[in-house]
């Protein structure tokens, strides 16, 4: 298969060149995705699909455009590429639009990232049903359960890229995820809901399905009788799963495009002690079996570990080739991969014990942040921290502040990285945070 995809990408580049493009980059991808969903003891949905697409980036007459299609009929492909070149010519010239310099393709890592598990392709209906049943039984084992949906999601993703200046590459990965969402009868008309999902590239790395179902049920049970928390300024402990999403939000404007366009609070922070000295974040595309591991990024830039923040000092931001050229920054990569966070040495229980009183956040609900100023306001669910222990469940609360300030107030990190996210974040402790509630 990859040979076929590679050939198709190379062919698209040739077509673009012969239509008059100076340079071109093409990526072909193919995926097989299977989805089994089980609800309340019965199979509810089976989806089994194979999808292909071709994307072409065209550089012609100092101009640039990008085109994608799922119509891979060879008779129409020539017309598609020809048209892509014609569209490019109708735009305005831009001196910064150039294909990735070939030097950035050099030293592509060759280590085995171990992203393909051969057993995924041969998973059968019986195995998927067995997981569904185990998840279903475990996640419904309580008299308050109204409904639970268990799902198994697996597949294979293949892609190949080629460029007119010598890039050729292909990547393949498998995935297998499963878990449950649970709804419980709560007080009044309310229902408590939560869930838990686990997954990765290898079936062998998956936890026991029944345990995942139990975790989903336990997480939901802990939401029962949740009430609106207080309006208060206090310490915030964020669990590892919710930390991954908070860090993602924090790091989102740390890129050359946002900075060059004047829409990032990270502008001019490189080299500065901008955040708490407890914080170190490394973008690491070379983690074995990592959820976002790769040998090269979408522009062909060879993968390498990239320190983003070291002890609170900003070391790098994400720089792609176009905005790098335009904003006079050396390209790193425009696309985040796995983020490793240097861990603390305490467990979540120890952190809560240290904190004594505060709010323990287990998930977010909506909210947003202004990338330019860093101002944020997020809905949350969690528990009060009472005498160093997880106390009563609370919700219908917001936390409000500024992301730059917040990550200056990072006091402690846990030793419990969340494995089911591309951001391997531990529990985090922030001081003096504004909560609004009752």
């Amino acid at each position, binding site marked *: 298969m990859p040979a076929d995809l590679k050939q198709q990408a190379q062919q698209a580049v040739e077509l673009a060149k012969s239509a008059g493009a100076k340079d071109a980059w093409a990526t072909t991808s193919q995926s097989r995705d299977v989805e089994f969903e089980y609800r309340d003891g019965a199979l509810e*949905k089976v989806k089994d699909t*194979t999808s292909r697409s071709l994307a072409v980036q065209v550089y012609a007459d100092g101009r640039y455009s990008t085109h994608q299609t*799922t119509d891979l*009929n060879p008779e129409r492909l020539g017309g598609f590429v020809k048209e892509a070149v014609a569209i490019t010519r109708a735009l305005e010239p831009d001196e910064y639009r150039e294909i990735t310099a070939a030097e950035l393709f050099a030293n592509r890592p060759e280590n085995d990232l171990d992203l393909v598990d051969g057993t995924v392709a041969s998973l059968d209906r019986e195995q998927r049903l067995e997981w569904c049943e185990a998840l279903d039984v475990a996640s419904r084992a309580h008299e308050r359960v109204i409904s639970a949906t268990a799902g198994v999601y697996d597949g294979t993703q293949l892609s190949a890229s080629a460029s007119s200046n010598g890039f050729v590459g292909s990547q393949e990965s498998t995935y297998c995820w499963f878990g449950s969402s649970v709804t419980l009868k709560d007080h009044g008309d309310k229902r408590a809901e939560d869930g838990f999902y686990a997954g990765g590239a290898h079936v062998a790395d998956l936890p026991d399905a029944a345990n995942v179902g139990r975790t989903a049920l336990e997480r939901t049970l802990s939401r029962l009788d949740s009430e609106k928390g207080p309006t208060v300024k206090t310490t915030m402990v964020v669990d590892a799963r919710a930390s991954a999403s908070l860090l993602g939000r924090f790091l989102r404007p740390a890129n050359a495009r946002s900075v060059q*366009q004047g829409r990032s609070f990270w502008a001019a922070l490189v080299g500065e002690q901008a955040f708490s000295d407890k914080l170190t974040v490394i973008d690491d595309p070379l983690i074995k079996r990592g959820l976002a591991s790769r040998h090269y990024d979408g522009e062909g830039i060879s993968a390498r570990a990239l320190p983003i923040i070291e002890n609170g000092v900003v070391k790098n931001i994400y720089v792609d080739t176009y905005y790098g050229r335009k904003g006079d920054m050396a390209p790193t990569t425009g696309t985040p991969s796995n983020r490793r966070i240097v861990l603390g040495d305490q467990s979540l229980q120890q952190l809560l014990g240290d904190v004594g009183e505060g709010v323990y956040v287990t998930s977010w609900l*909506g909210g947003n942040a*202004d990338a330019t100023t860093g101002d944020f306001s997020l809905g949350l669910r969690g528990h009060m921290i009472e005498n160093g222990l997880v106390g009563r469940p609370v919700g219908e609360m917001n936390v*409000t502040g500024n992301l730059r300030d917040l990550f200056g107030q990072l006091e402690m990190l846990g030793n419990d990285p969340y494995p089911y996210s591309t951001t391997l974040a531990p529990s985090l402790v922030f001081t003096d945070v504004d909560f*609004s509630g009752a």
Partner: protein
Amino acid sequence: MTIKRREFLGRMAAGSAILTVPGFLTSCGIQQATAVADPTPENPFMSWFGVDQATVARVMSELTASGADAADLYFQHSRSNSLSLEDGIVSKASSNIQQGVGLRVVIGEQTGYAFTEDMTLPSMLAAARTASAIASGSRAVAPQAFAPKDMGGLYTTTVPWADVGIDQKLPVLKFIEEKAKALDPAVEKVSVFWNDGDERVMIATLDGNLITDHRPMTRATVLVTAKKGDEVQSGYSNIAAREEFGWYTEERLTRMVQEAVDRTMILFDARRPPAGEMPVILASGASGILLHEAIGHGMEADFNRKGVSIYSDMMGKKVAEPFVTVVDQASSPRERGSLNYDDEGNKAGRTVMVEDGILKSYLHDQISAKQYDLKPTGSGRRQSYKFAPMPRMTCTFMEDGPHTKEEIIAAVDHGIICETYTNGQVQIGAGDYTFYVKNGWLVEGGKVTAPIKDVNIIGNGPESLKRITMVANDARLDTGGWTCGKNGQSVPVSQGIPTVLVSNMTVGGENAS
């Protein structure tokens, strides 16, 4: 007229060539436009998708070989185009062609689904066999022929987007940029994003219906970054509709740009409100986000048939004051959320969810309608052929009430007005929902006093509905480019509301004591 008899896929290429070449071919495109584009195609099988009726019947038969209560083939061809302007030049264009057929079998509450992008008979038959594996009964009776229904007329166009050249769009992006810069000298950077597209769907159902729909869509967005001293602020505005090129009048574009500049400049003076509970006034228009989150999702019948929505046991009960009526109306013409037919081939129309304060109807797809023994409300939607449909909102709004905006502001001693939003979210079971307010105002002593910014608001759906104590008479639909995400599928939606007062909500803010 010859163009209509040509194979659609071939025509797309021809139309697109017009799009790409600004010169002599554009005039050809304008000639085409003298005919009304896309009447109900005489033969949509061939003219739109290059398949014949017998092939579709053959695939349907294979799809239902092991039984089916319902089944459909969802053919889709969509082409979207985008342009972006940054730093004064339009230097990036993108296009995306999505073509495929989704095949679905439904037995009771069970769904089997597959799709293929290769519309040859062997590929479609293979996908049909995959989807049919959910069933294990005896063969359903599949139709040999399909009866085409009239194409609806909610958003007919005279010029399809495929016939609008880049040379025509480029000056519009330039106009937006120049306008923004001219409106305030503090404006430093302007980005403009343009999207347009044509989508054709053909739905063949097990009961022998054949539905065709041509769904145009366009959206223009302007982002503004301004600087005063060392302080940088940015804001944006966008407009979207199932419209054609002529919709972008100078007046409409100027209004959008003015909004973006105003929203940005006010941020220099805006602050965070105090944290905590307070009365919240929702300005007319985009505040319809309240309805989308606080009640709309909770009324989607898939959540109710499973009993997981907080509204599951409230049908027929009083949920709000008698002056509160909430509607989901796909038949609103030319809106972003408008639909002639839903993605199961049912006529989309008007569903009154709350009438005079009483909970009246959920939003149904075929599966839930069957379970509740009701007619579908035409609410089955999907992102594309890659997905099975589920109940979704279209254009959701509240009808006018008995109060005025001025009365509402005068009634608030200490609270806020919410005016513009970036996003919202809801938990269907607990009913807790949020929306993020980008711009708003403090209200003190019945008067608007100071601008506020960047606060999340959180409430509980049924509680908030009960707390709507005043509804003004200035209802309007927002023309913003809203997209709703649910279970991994995104669909375009619209929302609207008159000015309303919610007597108590939790406002994110600072200086909590």
